[in-house]
């Protein structure tokens, strides 16, 4: 955006500058409580915190408040537009970012990870791969981490073959689809097969943009814009497509995981910085990263390519990619991506914590072991699952460490002799048992002496990882008095 352009329009307020009053002024102010908040002001506060959306206020959609709605939508529009794709009930949202760095507010819409299939794969192999993609899952702090979408690539460049592959995928797959073909004729064949599934079209380029734009309008699908290593061309395409009538775009400035990695990181960063800091509208769309491109380099060992794909994906997750297309289906490649994505999209304003207190497992009696851990959600759920798996009868004290893990909490003194003492007192743990012995996490071993002194309890240093708890209890419990 030129400086001249910026001066024509008053600068948009950033999400951090919008006050609840700004929102409240435009609301119906009827305190109808249809949003389940106690009044319009409470609702406005949660909206500016990013916790509720305009969709949570039904009266805004009654037709009586259209002008106010459009002002609110403008006021609250994120500098990075939110774009959705996928069939009804299974849509994925991309982008919708309000800030460059997560600590400034919070990130919305965790970047979906799509895995590719292509149209020259034998039918059974194709279907097996789709099922493998859909079934990939990992249980992480009580949440299921999954893969989100399938990218169907046309290797054949043949409309009929592509159409068949799309049909075969759609027959077994329930998750959103990205259609990848640079030839509009091939793309149309694929679109015709799944017209109600609202796939993401990949992609408009400098050569095919007009036909791809027509297809996107005809099928009401969002459109990716591909301009590798050329941000001027990317802007030119976006400007043209906007004029053409498209509203839902996704930007791919090209992903280079090996030679040119610096340019890729720099391009992603430049696009997102301009969007968030200068409200540049041409760059204000979700970013698509394609770590899969590392596979196009030629004949190198598969493990090295997977390794390269893993590091490229993780760097792009950190550097603003709102959607990834990958090829590896290996757990060791995908696990760090899915966990890092989950982490980046937690709200940095709230520690990931669980309630403090005493949890009871099985049927403990007055001689059962007492363990203590922190209230960091991952720590807690990990310990919980290890105790449950082993069917132990025990008490688990959850101390307030401000949502930090044992390691960080010990380092930061959030988990200390004092905090252990006060947790034992607060929850009246001594009254539950006869023995007065507490098992502390192995990572808090250095606290044992001072904790023994401060609490008057006997302290046992447990294993460093809670997977060792069952063995530890078998070997060490009951304790000789």
């Amino acid at each position, binding site marked *: 955006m030129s400086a001249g352009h910026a001066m024509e329009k008053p600068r948009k307020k950033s999400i951090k500058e919008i006050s609840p009053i700004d929102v409240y002024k435009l609301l119906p102010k009827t305190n109808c409580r249809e949003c389940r908040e106690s009044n319009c002001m409470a609702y406005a506060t949660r909206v500016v915190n990013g*916790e509720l*959306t*305009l969709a949570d206020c039904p009266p805004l*959609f009654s*037709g009586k408040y259209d002008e106010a709605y459009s002002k609110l939508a403008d006021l*609250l529009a994120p500098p990075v537009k*939110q774009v959705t794709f996928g069939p009804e009930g299974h*849509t994925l*949202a991309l982008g919708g970012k309000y800030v460059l760095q*997560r600590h400034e507010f919070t990130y*919305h*819409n*965790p970047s979906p990870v799509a895995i*590719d299939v292509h149209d020259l794969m034998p039918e059974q192999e194709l279907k097996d*791969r789709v099922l493998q993609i*859909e079934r990939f899952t990992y249980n992480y702090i009580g949440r299921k*981490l*999954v893969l989100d979408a399938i990218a169907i*690539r*046309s*290797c054949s*460049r043949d409309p009929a073959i592509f159409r068949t592959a799309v049909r075969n995928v759609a027959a077994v797959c329930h*998750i959103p689809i990205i259609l990848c073909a640079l030839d509009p004729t091939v793309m149309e064949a694929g679109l015709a097969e799944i017209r109600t599934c609202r796939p993401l079209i990949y992609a408009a380029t400098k050569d095919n943009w007009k036909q791809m734009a027509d297809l996107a309008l005809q099928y009401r699908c969002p459109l990716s814009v591909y301009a*590798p*290593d050329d941000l*001027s061309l990317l*802007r*030119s395409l*976006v400007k043209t497509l906007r*004029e053409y009538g498209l509203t839902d775009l996704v930007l791919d400035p*090209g*992903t*280079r995981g090996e*030679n040119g*990695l*610096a340019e890729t990181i720099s391009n992603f960063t430049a696009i997102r910085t301009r969007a968030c800091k200068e409200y540049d509208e041409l760059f204000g769309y979700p970013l698509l990263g394609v770590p899969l*491109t590392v*596979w*196009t380099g030629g004949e*190198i*060992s598969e*493990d*090295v390519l997977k*390794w390269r794909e893993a*590091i490229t994906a993780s*760097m792009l997750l*950190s*550097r603003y990619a709102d959607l990834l297309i990958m090829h590896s*289906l*290996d*757990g*060791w490649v995908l696990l760090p991506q899915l966990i890092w994505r989950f*982490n980046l999209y937690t709200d*940095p304003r709230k520690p990931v914590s669980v309630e403090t207190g005493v949890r009871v497992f099985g049927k403990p009696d007055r001689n059962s072991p007492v363990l203590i851990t922190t209230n960091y959600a991952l720590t807690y759920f990990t310990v919980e699952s290890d105790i449950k798996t082993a069917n132990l009868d025990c008490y688990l004290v959850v101390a307030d460490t401000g949502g*930090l893990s044992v*390691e*960080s909490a010990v380092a930061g003194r959030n988990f200390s002799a004092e905090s252990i003492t006060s947790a034992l007192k607060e929850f009246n743990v001594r009254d539950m048992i006869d023995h007065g012995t507490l098992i502390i996490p192995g990572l808090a071993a250095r606290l044992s*002496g001072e904790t023994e002194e401060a609490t008057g309890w006997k302290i046992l240093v447990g294993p*460093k990882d809670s*997977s060792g708890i069952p063995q530890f209890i078998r070997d060490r419990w009951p304790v000789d008095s």
Partner: protein
Amino acid sequence: MAQKNNNNRIDGEQLLTLAPQLLELLKGVHQVELENFSMDIGNLELFIPTNSLTSGLSPAAAEPVRIKPTELLPESYVPVSIDYPGRVREVTLGATRAEGGTRCRTITLGGATAPAYPDRIHLPVHPPTIALDVFDMEVALPKVLLENVREVMHDPAEWARMNVKKFGADMVTVHLMSTDPLFRNATPAAAAKTVEEVLQAVDVPLIIGGCGDPKKDAEVFSHIAEMAEGERLLLNSVTLDMAEAKTLERVATAADKYGHAVLAFTGLELNSAKELNRRLYQYIAPENIVMDLTTVALGYGLEYSFSIHERARFAALMGDTELAHPVISASTNAWAAREAWMQMAPGYGPRELRGPIWETINALSLLLAGIDIYMMMHPAAVLTLKDVIRRLGPDPGEDMTDRIDDWVSVRL
């Protein structure tokens, strides 16, 4: 797509193309055991919230009549680089003979004038440095880490030599675990002897790690500071616990007097980091302070480390001089995550790959948040990090003619 078994080892030429020695370093990995992968979800659920503040149906708006363009509308892109008022201080570690030490070279950290890798103009003033860990006693290491160092575990000097010669360490960290009163309670003199041996064995700058006990560390560091006068060691670490135990002054003064730098360690809290630095300024020049803001493992809170580094760097650039110090990341901490070291269902891959990729991604994520120096352990992670640091640095001289344009139709 057929899963090919990688039973064949990879030939040397291929390795050199991408990451020399990488596969060698990942030794023990022969195949990905997919055949036994059990999948246990019935129906797929998506956990992607769609909560943009303006999501939902918008009231219908009349479509304006528009004239569709028939040609590409021209539009240019001019890179904008943002200048900041602040600058991160430079800290130099190690000293050559001419400078009063015995190292072959010095290493300067910091000097940043922008957030990490914002564009191709603001490149790191000094490329991030990597120190490899050495422990002075047997420690419980994950199997995958142990395999690389088993032979040298009883000899810190030999271990240090291997880190430099074989694994390309820029620096070596000697963790004096044996001084821990809870373990071996080794004397400061014994610890100093170990440091002396390592100083003899390698000629790179050293980081000296303590045991975490504020009183014992103060004794040990003060003793070593005097013994290794002029070497510009980095003493890892000084803490607010030391201030409380009234030992901070002693360590910081010794570091200042004998020409060393200190690592100011705090737990994910910028106000504590600033407070500790303010206390240190009374005894030692700010140019001798590196910060450790805490590195948590991926999956165990890495996002806290990531954001605190982004915040610290931004504050420093906006003029907060109390945070304008180079920062270190102990990315070896990645191995605390069970996903890094545990045997898991075959679908999640062998730990010989999962472990090193965990450390690598831990370190790379923080590289993008502004880390100046690393403490690391797995050779494959080190190699990858060095490769990425080079690629992101000034003119990596890369051939970018290889086509990514038509990745869509590449048959894999």
